[in-house]
């Protein structure tokens, strides 16, 4: 599924994103399941606040990590996240 660049990205209210102390990881929780996230994935999802669009997320993360050229990786991850129902665009 393709990411629409104009529409805001929102973390799904049907899932929960949470820090797990025992695993020292951010995880996504949903009915009868859990996905462990690496740090970059968790950083992206935390910015899916229902206000930011793709460009804002790229800009924020590139500023935070003082780098450029993150857009392709971020889009790839967000496409997966959309397919898995972790985020919404509408």
């Amino acid at each position: 599924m393709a990411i629409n660049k104009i529409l805001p990205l929102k973390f799904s209210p049907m899932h929960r994103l949470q820090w797990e102390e025992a695993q020292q990881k951010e995880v996504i929780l949903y009915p009868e399941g859990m996905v462990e996230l690496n740090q970059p994935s968790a950083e992206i999802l935390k910015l899916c606040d229902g206000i930011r669009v793709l460009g804002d997320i790229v800009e924020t993360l590139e500023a935070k990590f003082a780098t450029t050229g993150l857009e392709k990786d971020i889009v790839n991850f967000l496409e997966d996240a959309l397919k898995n129902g972790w985020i919404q665009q509408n």
Partner: protein
Amino acid sequence: MAGSSKIKITPPRWLLAELTYACPLQCPYCANPLDYQRHSKELSTEDWKRVLTQARKMGAVQLGLSGGEPLVRKDLEEIVQHARALGYYTNLITSAYGMDEARIIALKEAGLDHIQVSIQASSRELSDYLAGTKSFEHKKQVARWVKKQGYPMVLCVVIHRENIDEMPQILAMAEELDADYLELANTQYYGWAHANRDLLLPTQAQFTKAEKIAQAFKEKVEGKMKIYYVVPDFYEDRPKACMNGWGTTFLTIAPDGVALPCHSARELPELNCPNVNEFSIEEIWHHSKAFNFFRGDQWMQEPCRSCDEKEKDFGGCRCQAYLLQGDMYAADPVCSKSPQHHLIQEAIDSAAKHDNTQNEQPLIFRNSKNSRLY
């Protein structure tokens, strides 16, 4: 103890809290023990809170509130509130019987994350017959309320010979109710389902047809509804990786406080499963005889011991090995490498000889009267 002390013990992730064995329904495939009437003493609210706190501290994060029927517990909201405060993802696994919209709202306010509603079949007549209770229309109403209140709604249908040919209608019902997840759980033959196996086990042709229909549906609804398909292991040639390995991930606490490595483990001899009234979850998970019994692979016999797939399926299910051949150390007879694999074909043949319409041997419904016979 059969397990070795050198095995690395991983923390529990999944806690199944069976809050009560009481249930207004009488499903003949219930996973509760046949003799549940003997274990009618229940943990108090404070006991459950202590158990939840201790397990969470060790790393448990998914919490299933089940039974029996968990709605029977008047302290359900209080338990949910405690669980949410600890950071559990809380799943209510219910028949929906006795639920109303006010309680769905109260549970949401307490912090419940999702509700799984079970429906027995796609028609009122069959669903009410299997449940032993007039409940079909109400269950559908509860499913709609669950959606309305903003929960992810999981619809669970247990599949067996009586309803497997209704697969298209079951899928249509899931669509009509707008389920977010559909669990199609082929019956696993433990507890009451084991006692009724001759009348519940479908034929291979029925399985194959139903699976094909479910698979096509899964593709059709991708992105809208997720399908959890619990495979019928009697028609597989390798066993399931039961519980993701003994004492690695899952912890079940029975209504009376007995801690079980899987919800059927009560049926196994020699385990002396510990009670949370006597030990902490930490002590139970790390040091009890029961939880160490089948950890690792030192307990295995041939053909498992030298099998190159033992890391994948851990020799299959201990309870199934015990129920079908009386030896809990043996390979799960579902495995085609098991010298006792013929028992599976014999079970299939035996079931095929029984004709439900003739009523020669009625289903044994799960109720207190029948439980006292065991």
